Structures are given as C-alpha cells and as structure tokens.
C-alpha cells in the first residue's frame, strides 16, 4: 500500500462492551422481582477485546452474522456508545450515517432539518447556508424540502440524510446499511460519491451484508463473530472467511 496505510485515524485498544439486558423497566416489576433480580438480567459481551487500527484513506468493511457486534463496533467508534472497557481514539472530522434519517425531527420541514442535522454533524449555520442548494440538488427532492419530514417516504429520508452527511466534508465516514433503502439510480449515485471520497483520501467504515459491495469497494475487511475479530485482511479472503464461519454454525 501507499503512504495511506501509515497514518491511523482510529485506534481501538482492548475495547469491550457488555450489554446487560434487564427484563423489567418499571418500579413495580423491580419491586416484585427484588432479590431475584439476577434471573431477570442477561448479560453478554457484544464486543470482546477488540484491538484495531484504521488507517487514513482506507475503506474498511465490517461484516459478520446478525448480532455479531458490527453495528455496536461502529457506534463505539462514533462515540454513541461508551465501551465498558478499553479506549477508542480518533482524529479528524467524523460523520456517521447510522440507520434511517439520523436525527431528523418528524415535525420540522426538510429545510429546518437540514440546518439542525448539519449543526449536529458539526457544520456552522453559515456553512450550511452555503451548501444548502447543493444538498437539495444531491437529494433530488426540491419539491418536498418545505414539507414536514414525517410525510417523507423512507427513500426521501435517506436521500436527504446522505446528502447532508457528504457535505460535512468528513475525514471519516461511518456508514451502516443505509444505502439499501434508496432506489437503484440513487444507490449508484451514492456509491459513486463514496468512490469519489476514496479518491480524496477519506476513510470509510462500512457495515453491510452486501458482500459484493464489500469485495468491490473495500481495501480491508474485518469479520466479526460474537464480538471478536475472526478475520482481518483482504476483502475477498474476508468474504470467504465469513462464508466459512456461516458454514460452521
């Protein structure tokens, strides 16, 4: 690889995340089950001692079975979930596209949400004003920009969310399965944009079940299983490793 591989942007050191699932949430349930509380708790390690360096300019695919910890890992990197143990460090501007319409307020219009969402992703009001037309153009929904977001279709949601996220000028872009919602031309547009991002030396961390995309786009694949890294390396081999893992289960 080139110079790109020498500069880490994200480092994870012994990162573990334990989830405790309490089955009761109300006071009554807790009082009734007091003392037997252990029975009503389940805990498991969603991430288990992950050591990882992600270098600037690479595109990393996180793959694994459902519940293997991919999305949790992405959220830990994004700072949305605090790890139980270990440290996540990162540098550069980060934008996260996790699930649908991150942070849209359903009662506000598309326009108001662009400003709110832009601010959440770290843009100033002035910058958003400058990018506004370009954001709307990319999303291709100018007719609906003054409509309340709750009337949007899921495709329109994603279009607007994606359009905002790419205008943040991120050094690191976290993407979690969002692209599956748009129609084919828009998916292609997004993939083209991601390719452009790669050319510009941005780092992309991608969670997906679409193994073809992974093989096409990623420099590196990390395969997770039960919160552990079971493979880390070339994309084609990674996909093979995941399939082998599926076969053993």
């Amino acid at each position, binding site marked *: 690889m080139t110079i790109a591989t020498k500069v880490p942007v994200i480092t994870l050191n012994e990162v573990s995340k334990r989830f405790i699932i309490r089955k009761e949430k109300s006071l009554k349930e807790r009082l009734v089950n007091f003392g037997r509380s252990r029975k009503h708790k389940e805990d498991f390690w969603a991430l288990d001692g992950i050591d990882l360096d992600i270098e600037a300019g690479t595109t990393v695919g996180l793959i694994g079975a459902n519940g293997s910890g991919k999305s949790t890992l992405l959220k830990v990197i994004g700072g949305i979930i605090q790890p139980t143990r270990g440290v996540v460090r990162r540098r550069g501007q980060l934008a996260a596209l996790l699930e649908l319409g991150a942070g849209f307020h359903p*009662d506000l219009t598309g326009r108001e949400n662009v400003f709110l969402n832009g601010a959440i992703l770290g843009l100033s009001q002035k910058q958003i004003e400058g990018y506004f037309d370009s954001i709307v153009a990319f999303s291709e929904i100018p007719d609906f920009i003054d409509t309340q977001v709750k009337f949007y279709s899921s495709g329109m949601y994603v279009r607007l969310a994606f359009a905002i996220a790419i205008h943040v000028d991120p050094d690191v872009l976290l993407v979690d399965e969002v692209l599956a919602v748009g129609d084919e031309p828009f998916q292609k547009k997004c993939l083209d944009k991601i390719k452009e991002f790669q050319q510009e030396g941005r780092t992309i961390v991608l969670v997906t079940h679409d193994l073809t995309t992974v093989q096409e786009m990623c420099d590196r694949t990390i395969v997770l299983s039960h919160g552990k890294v079971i493979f880390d390396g070339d994309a084609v081999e990674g996909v093979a490793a995941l399939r082998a893992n599926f076969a053993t289960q």
Partner: protein
Amino acid sequence: MRSPVTNTVAQERIRRIEKLPFVAAGAPDATLLGGFWGGVRDVITHKSLLDLLIRRELKARYKDSSLGFVWSFIRPLTMLLIYYVAIGQFLGAARSVPQYAVFVYSGLTIWGLYNEIIASSTTSILANAGLIKKVYVPRELFPLASIGSALFNFGIQMIVLLAAIVVTGQFPLSWNLLYALAAIVVVVTYGIALALFLSAWNVYLRDIQYLVEVALLIFFWASPVVYAWTQVQTVAKNHAWIADVYLLNPMTNAILAFQKGMWEAGSKTNVLGLNAAGKPNVIKPVDWPAHLDFRLLVLFVIGLALIYVAQRVFSRLQGNFAQEI
C-alpha cells in the same frame, strides 16, 4: 479492489490528519473534577447547536395547531382565572391578600418556570432517542434545551405579568426587584441540577416521569403560590417549627423572593373593604422571612454544588443511554 490512494488531494488530507492529535471518542473522561469542566466545555463548543435545539423545541411544540404560540398565553391565563375565581373569590383568599390577581400570577409565573423545566427535561433524553442512538452530541444539550425553551415561555409570561402590574397601576420600581432576579437565578440553578439528574435517571427507570408529575403537584401546594405566606404563618403561630420546615423548600424561598419583588402591595399596609364587624379590614404588610437575601445566597451555593453532583451522575449514566432507550 480499488487502486491505492496516490493523488495529491488525498495525500494532502492524510498529511493534515497526521498532524491532528487523537481524541477519545464520545463523552469526556469520567474523572472527578476534570470531567465536570470537560462536560461544560463540551456544551460551550456546541452552543449554536443548543440554540437550534431550543428553537426546534419551540417550533415543534405548536407546529400543527392553528393558534400556535397563542397557546402559551392561554394556559397560564386560564390558570390565573381559575385560581382568582375559585380560590381568591369563592374560598376568600382575596379578602386577606391584597391585589390577589398580581399575587397569584407572580407565583404562577415563577412556579411555571420551575414546573416546565422539571417536567419537560425529565423526558428530554427519551424524547430525543432518535438522535442519541445515531449521533454523538453532548447529551447534556437535551435537558438544557428544555430549560432554554422553558425560559422562553417564562419570558412571555413575564411580559403578561408586567403588563398586568402596569394595568393595576403599581409598578414595583424598587430595590426589591433584585429579589425577583435572585429568585429566577435560584430556580434555574435548581432546575439545571434536577433536569440533569432526572433526565438521566428516567432512561433507566421510566417511573421517574410519573413520580415527577406527582411530586410537582405536591410541591405546588407546598409552596405559597395560591395562598399567602401570611396564611402559613397564622397556622404555624404556635408551632414555629412548621414554618421552619416549610421554609426548607428552596422553591418556597424563591417564590417568596419573587413575590417580594413583583407584588408591591404585599409590602404595604392595605385596607380591603370592611370585615364582619363592620370595621375596615386592615391587612398588615407581609412579614417576609428574616434574612431572605442570605437564604437565597446559601440556596444558590447549594444549587451550584448540586449541579456539579448532577453533572457527574449524568456523565456516568450517559454511557449506556444509546442502548437503554
């Protein structure tokens, strides 16, 4: 597999990143003192976002109603009317409290601020679940945004209150106004502390929001909002400890200070018609609690300490918000 990064744009970006220091992802460290200032700094760097969140709360509140913001006037005015008619006239509180309308409305205004801060911030984290699960912003912003929007509504009510005072022809232009200001500061201080604490706790124990509703109802009647401090003193005449306990409530002190500032008639001798014996019904000025200014200062300092504790609790609890919501 795509070709390795070779062009100059990319190399420039990477060279720039190479110089940046690493920062820990998510909330600042949970160390005791540094953590608190880290949290404060985090909020300050996001103050334009806080501003937007406050606007969003205000905008979204009456978004689909045709009267919109008029509703923020209608509710307190209705309450004023109810208390004025039911308690003031029917139950006769107005016979012993001069300028009862101004009295009750100043109490309702300052209590309304407190009530709205607590009630709306308690559910603020849950109400913003969509955001908290998907992006990292300092989570303190959500309860603080609730406080901001409560302050905005309080501002509107203050305008109504001041208008009412001017209409009744007794503008309280005196040093007592500083009491009103101090009262607002104390209310906001306790509001911030409780907002941080309750909003975080409510994520883990959803009963908090209902408990809070009940507690607010109790404290409303345990504070001199619709009845006067003088009436409490009359009841507690032979048992001084009752008044002492009553004054332990920070809100009681804040409300009394606010009334002292805004309700001029309370500090004067008034004659309200004739009493049962046919003599003029003379109402002596309110015997405000001794050292009210000192009490407010002490409460303020305690409030600041509570904010510190609440922020520490909040930052410990917030690590798991995203999965508990």
